[in-house]
């Protein structure tokens, strides 16, 4: 890709900025942090027209990488800002692939810099707790009346928890494939690995998901008895 994928650690001002616990950017050299570039009005409208439709995709991707809503929002906002600044050098091609590459790199940089992962662990634990209580509630309602909505919720919780357990390099490929319906070629550009690697990671990811889901399903069934 000729256009701008900013790789982790290479973003504007990455040398001047470091993340502190609490997520505040600490920048020592103000003027060099965001080299401000002026887009023309036309270019600006183009940016909005091409990139804004992918905001949901960008958010969902960041949400699965960062694992909590607030960090995902911060990362996507940062990614949009970087995309906006890199836009003059964007040379066409799939805008979604271009934007997702930036989102991923921002996320990975932030994950690397995360000093205190305690916040994440806490949220993940909290989610697991919610799921556990959800799972616990099902048998009672099954006795009275099978509640389709509740069952669907439980199913979602199971699949989500299995997907959350995948390591990041497998998880991101499943997210891009199943939620964004991207081709192996597009995924390989975003993740910066050969297509063959995408194929093998996807196989591994699906095999692992199957195992995790079988465990989950059995666990659920045991609960129901």
């Amino acid at each position, binding site marked *: 890709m000729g256009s701008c994928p900013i790789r982790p650690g290479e973003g504007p001002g990455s040398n001047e900025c470091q993340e502190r616990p609490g*997520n505040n950017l600490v*920048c020592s050299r103000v003027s060099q*942090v965001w080299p401000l570039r002026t887009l023309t009005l036309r270019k600006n409208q183009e940016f909005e027209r091409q990139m804004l439709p992918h905001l949901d995709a960008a*958010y969902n991707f960041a949400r699965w990488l960062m694992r909590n809503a607030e960090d995902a929002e911060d990362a996507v906002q940062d990614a*949009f800002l970087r995309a906006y600044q890199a836009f003059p050098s964007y040379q066409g091609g799939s805008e979604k692939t271009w934007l997702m590459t930036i989102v991923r790199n921002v996320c990975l940089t932030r994950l690397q810099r995360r000093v205190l992962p305690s916040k994440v662990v806490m949220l993940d634990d909290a989610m697991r707790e919610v799921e556990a209580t959800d799972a616990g509630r099902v048998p009672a309602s099954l006795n009275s009346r099978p509640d389709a909505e509740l069952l669907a919720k439980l199913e979602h919780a199971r699949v989500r928890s299995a997907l959350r357990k995948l390591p990041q390099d497998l998880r991101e490929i499943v997210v891009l494939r199943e939620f964004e319906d991207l081709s192996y070629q597009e995924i390989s550009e975003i993740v910066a690995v050969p297509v063959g690697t995408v194929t093998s990671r*996807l*196989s591994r990811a699906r095999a692992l998901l199957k195992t995790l*889901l079988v465990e989950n399903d059995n666990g659920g069934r045991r609960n129901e008895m």
Partner: protein
Amino acid sequence: MKCEEAHELLDAFHDGELQLASSAAVERHLCTCPSCSAAFNLHTTLCTRVRRLGRMPAPALFVARISGSLREENREPTGMLPVRSWRALAASHLLAVALGGVTVLGFVPARHAHTFTIQETIDAHVRSLIDERTLMQIVSSDSHNLRPWFMGKIDFSPAVVELDKEGFPLLGARVDYLAKRYAAALVYGRRKHRINLFVSPADASSTAAMTATARNGYNVVEWQTDGLSYRVVSDLDRAELAQFSELVQMRRGRP
């Protein structure tokens, strides 16, 4: 084709990533081999289960924040710093650094008037909390009580929304004076927190899109609809306040 070979190609076959010839070969194999065909069905089931989860969509307030700041750029005439609010975002990051520990949530346009009203909104909120009597001039959780109460006190009619079921009980109201205008102030609760919702006729400094700002531990969300400007302020966390704001915006106009 042998089973191992077919097995290796199952993913790419499923995703439509095989060349036509290989794809046809896998298909032929699946027709004749029950065990591979069963494996393929498992595959399809798994992918369907994952796909059914769907995307986690970006929260409405977040979308409003991003698109709002872009729209704002588009209104700028060319040659007049079209990156103003993005620039302001960068500036606000730096401000956050300068102040140490202040998180800036939104793209705060670098307008004095705007900055001024945000501070004024927070001031009014803090002032209202000094005493229960300054917080509410009328205590009522009934919108049908509160709307007529405003008649004769202010020259516009704010929509009053009841959000008890959503966990934001309406507590009461007062008339306040904010940014050189009379404002209807509706008071809501959330656990021990208090939320002030200020409604006043919109002026040039208010923006249509929902924007969120944090300052000194307070979160302010503001937007404008039908010629009225809405400002929500509380020490509640930003996600909950965003939820509250979206509910108010959605229900407005309905009893």
